[in-house]
C-alpha cells in the first residue's frame, strides 16, 4: 500500500495518509545532533519543509526549521525521524523521547 506523505498549511503539519500526524510547536529532544552548543538540544519545531520515507524500517523523516528553547539557536534540521510506518499504520515518535542516534546520524540529502 502506498503511503501519502506531505506537509501542509505552510509547513504547519505532516500529513500521513490524509491525517494530521505531526504538528509544529512541539519540543523535540535531539541528543545526537550538533544543532547548537547545548548538551541535549531541546528544539521547538516551527515549520516543516519536507517529509519522506527512509529505509527498510520505513522511518518517516522530516526536514524542519526549529529553535533550541534553551540557547535560542535557530536552524534547519534535516531528516528528523518523526515516526515510522508499521503494517501500513503511522506510529508517531514522542518528541520528548530521545531520538535513536543511529537514525539521527543519517543526515543530509
Amino acid at each position: 500500500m502506498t503511503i501519502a506523505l506531505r506537509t501542509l498549511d505552510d509547513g504547519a503539519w505532516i500529513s500521513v495518509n490524509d491525517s494530521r500526524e505531526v504538528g509544529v510547536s512541539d519540543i523535540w529532544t535531539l541528543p545526537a545532533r550538533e544543532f547548537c552548543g547545548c548538551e541535549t538540544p531541546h528544539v521547538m519545531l516551527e515549520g516543516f519543509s519536507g517529509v519522506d520515507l527512509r529505509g527498510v524500517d520505513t522511518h518517516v523523516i522530516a526536514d524542519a526549521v526549529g529553535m533550541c528553547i534553551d540557547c535560542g539557536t535557530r536552524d534547519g534540521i534535516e531528516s528528523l525521524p518523526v515516526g515510522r510506518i508499521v503494517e501500513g499504520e503511522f506510529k508517531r515518535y514522542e518528541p520528548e523521547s530521545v531520538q535513536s542516534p543511529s537514525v539521527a546520524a543519517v543526515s543530509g540529502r
Partner: protein
Amino acid sequence: MPTDVEEWKDEIYGTDIRDHIERFAEDGWESIPDDEKDAWFERFKWYGLYHQRAGQESYFMMRIGPPSGVLEPGQFRRIVEIADEYARGPVSNPEFGNGWLDVTTRQAIQLHWIRIEDVPDIFEALEDVGLSTVQACGDSWRNIVGCPVAGKDKHEHVDAQGLADDLHDTFKKNEAHSNLPRKWKVSVTGCDEGCGQGDINDLAFEPAEKEVDGETVTGYNVRVGGGLARNEPRFAKNIDVFVTPEQAVEVAGGISALFRDHGDRENRYKARIKFLVDEWGAEKLRNVLQEEYIDFELETAGEDLRHSYSYNAGDADGKHDHVGVHEQTDGNNYIGLNVLVGRLGIDDGYEIADAAEEHASGEVRLTQRQNIILTDVPDDEVDALLDNPVFDEYSPDPHPFQRGSIACTGSEFCSLSIVETKNRQVRFSRWLVDNVSLPEGVEDFHIHLSGCTASCAQPQIADVSLRGMKTRKDGEPVEALDIGLGGGLGENPQFASWVADRVPADEVPGAIENLLGNFDDARRDGESFREFVAARDDEELADLVEPEETSYEDPFLHNTKRTWYPYAEEDGFDDSPAPARADGTPIPSDD
C-alpha cells in the same frame, strides 16, 4: 516537481469547488473520502473555509471579505445572525463566551466552529445580502483592503472605494486569476493618511498626481511585493508606474497575470511575489509588465502623498487609526469603535446593529486595526447613539493600551500557532491599563501579538511587537514571546527590531512596564517612542526591556497546542469531541 497543492488545484479549483461543497454538506462530514481530505481542505480555502487545527477536526473557520471592509446596511446584522446560528463551539471561551465574530487585520470577518453541513445555508444567507466568502483564503485574490472610510473622509484624494469595488468585481470568480501560485493581497489607498497599509501587501495602489499631456491627473502609484510572513518581511517596492483610475484595473490584471505565470509553483515557501521582486528587482518587473502584459505605454510614477501618511505611523500629525468621532465630508460623522483584539460577542453585535440602524445609516465598516466604524451619524444623534452601554466596551475613546492592541487567532484554532494569543492579549491590556501609566504625550501605543512568524497580527509594524515562541522557565518549557520594538508605517515605514528573545509570557507585561519606565527616563523632550527606538542600537534597546514577573498571571503558560481546546476543562486530545456530526455528537474513530 509540482507540489501536491498544485496538482489538486490543476484538477479542481475556483468556482468548480462549490458543487462539491454542496455535495459534502448534503451527505455530511463523513462523506469526505479519507484519502481526499487534504485535497478538499486545501480547495475549500478558495471558498473561505479553513479546517481548524488538530483536535478540532470537522470544524471550520469561515472568512467573509467585504472590499475595504465596507458592510452595507443589513450586512453586518446578517453576519451576526449567521454567527448566532452557526458559529457556536462545543465549549465556551473564558473571555469571550460562546459565539462571537472576529474582525481581522485585512478587514474581513472570521467565524469559527462552522460545520460543513451548514455551509450551503450560510452561503445562501450571505448571498441574500450581497456578501460572499469567495477567495477569502487560498491561492488567489484575497479580500481587497483599503480606506474603510472611503467616500466619507475629508482626507480622501481619489475614490478608493470605486477602485476597490472594481477590482473585487473583476477579479473575484475570474477564471484567469483564480489559481495563482500563492495568496495575492491587494490594497487600495485613496487618502493622505495611508490607512490602506499598502506597504505590506503584494500589490498596492497609492494616491498620486501626475502631469499627463499638460494636465494634472489624479490616480495611483503602484507598489509590488510587500508582506510580513516567515521572518522575511518586505515593504512593497515602488515600480515607477502611475495609473489613472481607469487604467488601474488593467494594470492590476497585468501584474496578477505576471505573478500567475512567473511566480514559483515548485516551492510554496518562495511563491509570494515578494520573492520574485527580490530576484528580478523593480525595474525588470516593470519591463516584463510593460512588454508582456500591458498594451499601452505605462506612465512613470507621479507625485505621491506619502509625506503626510499618519496611519500607524508613530508620531506623525493626523489620525493613527479610525477610532473616535470624526466629521464626514457631508457633515455627518463616523464613529470608530474599539474592538479589543477584534473579537465581538454576538449579543453585542445585535446591540451595535440596532444602534447603527436607529441612529445612523446602519452601515458598519471594518478597519485593519481590528476595529469597526459606524458611518453616517448626524450630529444630533452622536450622543444618543453613544448612550448605549454597549459602547462602554466598544468605546470610541478607549485607553491607549486597548486601542493599540491587536492579536491573531493563535493556538485557539490555528495549526501554525506556537502560543495562545487573543485571551492573553486581553489580559495583558487589562493589566497594563490597571498598572502602567503612559509617559507624557504618548497617546498611541501599538502592541501587536502574533502566535507565530506568519505574522497575521502584523507584529512587525507595532511599537511593541510580540511573536510566539517557547522557552524554559524553572526547568519547564513555557510559552514565550519574542519582543520587537519601533515598527510602524508612514512615509518611511520601519519593521520592528527584535531585541529580546523568548521572554516567558508571564514576564511580558513587566517587560513592557519597565521598557516604558526606561523610555520615560531616557527620552529627550517630546521624543516619540518610535524616534527613541530609531536612535538606539539593538543592544542598548535590549537593556531597556527588563522582563519581570509582576502581579500579572498567565493561565496559558503550559503548551496550549497540546490541548484540543486550550480553555476546555478536560483539554487533552483524548477528550476532544471532534470530529463531530452536524448535531455535535462525536464520531467514533475506527481504530
